[in-house]
């Protein structure tokens, strides 16, 4: 793949462990996300098997609670999050015309912290059981009187991966603001990059509260403090606030990149620019702002009183306004276009009706008088799976089909893609549409069983059948990826006749991305050049030496150090904790005192290659 530039090392294990190249880090994020998608999906299928018939005894009690907790944690933190970061890494530097992210070392550290955090949470199965207090980890249930070491693994694992997430937020904010190509003003940024700015800001504000909440739980469990011990004056409601001050923005941290993806794909396959770009930027920012101040709608039944409930209810429903702007903007992006229904476009278009449905149930949930009945029932489960699977995951699949050529220099099979699209949509609708009835019929969420003959039997069976149909589609996607990996042929450049800067690069993307930094002359930069009759971007600099960051093993070792330290905490082994911290500390010292100026790619080699 990289025969153009002799200075690039071959793909060995060491290369992956030491790389700071955003394109390789992207692939590692995507691969990790894909593996956890399969694991989290299996958890979901096991739960649906248990719930297929009333009074089933396949997984009951603690077993079921471990499955539901791990399903939520894995899907949110170890699937949606890394896949989004994968696309950020793969695409954003290319969209802004940069040669890497602002802090390549930090980028690698962020990945490895995420990787070992995820590993820590998932190996809890082999050390006395997985966490079982729900993905919300509510105290007092999460305290050591009520749940086992699984919760320790969870709290520490999320702490590690959360640190990685905060690093990504900082990194991409700096990258987008500082490293844009000449001419690429903020209001010329592609929407995917715009949503990433807002998401980065949300991460910076939302993850610290989670860090605090997890630390308080961790202190209560490991050091015996009393933050949430009611008998000693602790207050579990504080935990709920902290968690949801993180938890609600987290929804937008996951969904805004999906909105960005739609705003990239719909214009390309409609052959029209995004309709109302400025409105879209304002709507995105407004959603981010409002998203930070509506967390109490997860807590209407906590008993905060009618004043707080109605204020937060109305504030929440206000988010429907910018979201509505987005929906109509997408519809009118297709309007009067010439739509090509590639697999990517099918998935992207399907998000609109599914997400509108999720938004409708979202407004219903946002208003307290109805929410008192809907809250913590299967109605909520149906609602947020419409958001996540109908909105976020469908967008990510669309993004995969769309950007696969850039990331892997291969194309995924279109015909297979369309088959799997229909499996996905039908399976998804069967699984989750019916859940909107289960809730009002009296089925709380997070239950491992229900009574037969109470109006819940048939719909639960339908839901289980749907879940298996959906898993067929995931299987097809995996096979399609494997096929493209081994049998796929290199693609031509710009296969979709796309509009934005990343597609102006000749595939495969070289290590340095752009031999010459491009000059951006319009919003859809590449489309503008194509319309002007140019095959390539106009360069903004002469061909010269390219400065590249050096690879480093330190991020990996540092993360291993924190991983070991976490084990020490969980099993109350102080020496192991200290050893782990020592490893990480030594790495930090080396990093601080070692002058590393990177290396330069020789322009002569370049001119031969390009």
């Amino acid at each position: 793949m990289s025969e153009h530039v002799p200075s690039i090392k071959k793909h060995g294990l060491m290369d992956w462990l030491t790389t700071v190249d955003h394109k390789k880090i992207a692939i590692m994020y995507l691969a990790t996300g894909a593996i956890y998608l399969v694991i989290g999906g299996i958890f979901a299928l096991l739960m649906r098997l248990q719930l297929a018939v009333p009074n089933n005894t396949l997984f009951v009690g603690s077993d079921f609670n471990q499955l539901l907790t791990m399903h939520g944690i894995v899907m949110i933190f170890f699937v949606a999050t890394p896949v989004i970061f994968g696309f950020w890494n793969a695409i954003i530097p290319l969209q802004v015309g940069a040669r890497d992210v602002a802090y390549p070392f930090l980028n690698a550290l962020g990945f490895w912290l995420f990787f070992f955090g995820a590993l820590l949470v998932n190996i809890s199965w082999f050390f006395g059981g997985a966490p079982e207090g729900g993905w919300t980890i509510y105290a007092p249930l999460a305290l050591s009187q009520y749940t086992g070491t699984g919760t320790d693994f969870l709290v520490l694992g999320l702490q590690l991966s959360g640190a990685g997430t905060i690093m990504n937020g900082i990194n991409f904010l700096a990258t987008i603001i500082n490293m844009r190509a000449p001419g690429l003003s903020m209001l010329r940024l592609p929407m995917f990059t715009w949503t990433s700015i807002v998401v980065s800001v949300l991460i910076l504000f939302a993850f610290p509260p989670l860090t605090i909440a997890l630390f308080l739980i961790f202190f209560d469990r490991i050091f015996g403090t009393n933050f949430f011990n009611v008998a000693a004056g602790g207050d579990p409601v504080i935990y709920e606030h902290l968690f949801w001050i993180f938890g609600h923005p987290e929804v937008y941290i996951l969904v805004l990149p999906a909105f960005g993806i739609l705003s990239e794909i719909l214009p390309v396959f409609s052959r029209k620019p995004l309709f109302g770009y400025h409105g879209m930027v304002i709507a995105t920012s407004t959603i981010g702002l409002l998203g930070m101040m509506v967390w109490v709608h997860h807590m209407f039944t906590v008993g905060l009183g009618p004043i707080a409930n109605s204020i937060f209810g109305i504030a929440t429903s206000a988010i429907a306004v910018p979201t509505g702007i987005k929906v109509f903007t997408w519809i009118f992006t297709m309007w009067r276009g010439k739509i090509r229904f590639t697999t990517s476009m099918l998935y992207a278009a399907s998000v609109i009706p599914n997400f509108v449905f999720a938004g409708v149930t979202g407004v219903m949930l946002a208003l307290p008088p109805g929410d008192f009945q809907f809250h913590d029932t299967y109605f909520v489960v149906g609602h947020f799976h419409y958001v996540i699977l109908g909105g976020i995951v469908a967008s990510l699949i669309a993004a995969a089909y769309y950007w696969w050529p850039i990331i892997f220099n291969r194309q995924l099979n279109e015909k297979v893609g369309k088959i799997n699209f229909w499996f996905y949509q039908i399976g998804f609708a069967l699984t989750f549409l019916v859940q909107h009835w289960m809730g009002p019929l009296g089925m709380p969420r997070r239950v491992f069983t229900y009574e037969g003959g109470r109006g819940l039997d048939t719909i639960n069976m339908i839901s289980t059948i749907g879940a298996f149909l959906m898993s067929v589609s995931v299987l097809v996607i995996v096979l399609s990826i494997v096929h493209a990996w081994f049998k796929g042929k290199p693609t031509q450049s710009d296969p979709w006749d796309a509009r934005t800067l990343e597609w102006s690069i000749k595939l495969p993307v070289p290590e340095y991305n752009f031999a010459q930094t491009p000059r951006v002359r319009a919003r859809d930069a590449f489309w503008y050049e194509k319309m002007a009759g140019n095959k390539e971007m106009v360069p903004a600099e002469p061909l010269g030496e390219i400065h590249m960051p050096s690879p480093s093993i330190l991020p990996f070792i540092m993360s291993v150090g924190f991983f070991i330290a976490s084990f020490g905490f969980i099993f109350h082994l102080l020496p192991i904790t200290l050893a782990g911290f020592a490893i990480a500390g030594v790495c930090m010292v080396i990093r601080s005192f070692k002058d590393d100026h990177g290396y330069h790619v020789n322009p002569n080699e370049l001119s031969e290659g390009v």
Partner: protein
Amino acid sequence: MRSGWKKRGHLFALIALVMLAVTGCGDPYLSTMQPKGESAEISLGFMKLSLFVMLFVMGVAYLLFAIAVIRFRRRKGDNSNPEQWEGNTKLEIIWTVIPIIILALLAIPTIQQTFALAQDDNPSEDMLKVKVTAHQYWWEFEYPDLGIVTAQDLYIPTGQQVYVELTSKDVLHSFWVPALAGKLDTNPGEINRMRLGANEPGVYDGKCAELCGPSHALMDFKVVALEPADFEAWKEKMKKPAPAPTSDVAKQGEQVFQQSCLACHGTDSQTKSIGPNLTNFGERNELAGVHELNKDNLVKWIKNPSSLKPGVTNMPAFEGSISDEDISALAEYLLQLKQE
């Protein structure tokens, strides 16, 4: 592709029809869609209102979407570019302002009903007062004005609002009687207040709606709504001393009870106990909230509570420490705890 989209629409319609046919509005004692109490009626009214408003919005969006994906597909061989239409201020203002108006209108009933459903700590004189304490995995009901404590079955008179104070002894739970009222959490160390009322007599299902541990799914209870006269009779029955056992087996069971159970379970409704109060236990609707109340199940429960409700740790398993014969007698004794 066109037929594909249509097919999908048909499929949705089909599913929706099947759903309605199969489920109707659900079980009359469990469903929020057949409300039997004032609070549940208010909630359902609001659920319907928000649904209809949102269905209108959804209809508009779906219609435009359908037109867009059907009409504006590229025809075969057409490689020209459409007009590069970048926006339209008028349209954008329309789809910003109209939703604001809709939501502003929806905000009015939201505030009204949210306040209508709220209950402060000043119950009116005529309200029956009940203190609810949630435990892993059972419910304690105390009537402070009547001097009665019971568990699992909450008796209330019809046609009267009950003032409910909620708290928890251990983790977070949530008190939910779908057919009578929306849910409210029980937070340890705090008291939440709500109103509960039933329009007609019946045995309504109650659920725990907040994940509280392995047996969360089994933490059910019942709200038994009685005509006011029947409720008066129930009060009297609860205050009567437990009937003396008549059979020899039951007498033996009583002795076992006094030795091994009395420390945690009272049979006198006037005093609170650590575990569920067992006054008139023989009249419970279910055993432990979810199992049929019969001797087999009761024996199983006493031998090992976790076999019926996983994760029960507060009550020990008595298998081995009490002989099978004694456990059988104990079950006999408990089942005859009722007033004729």
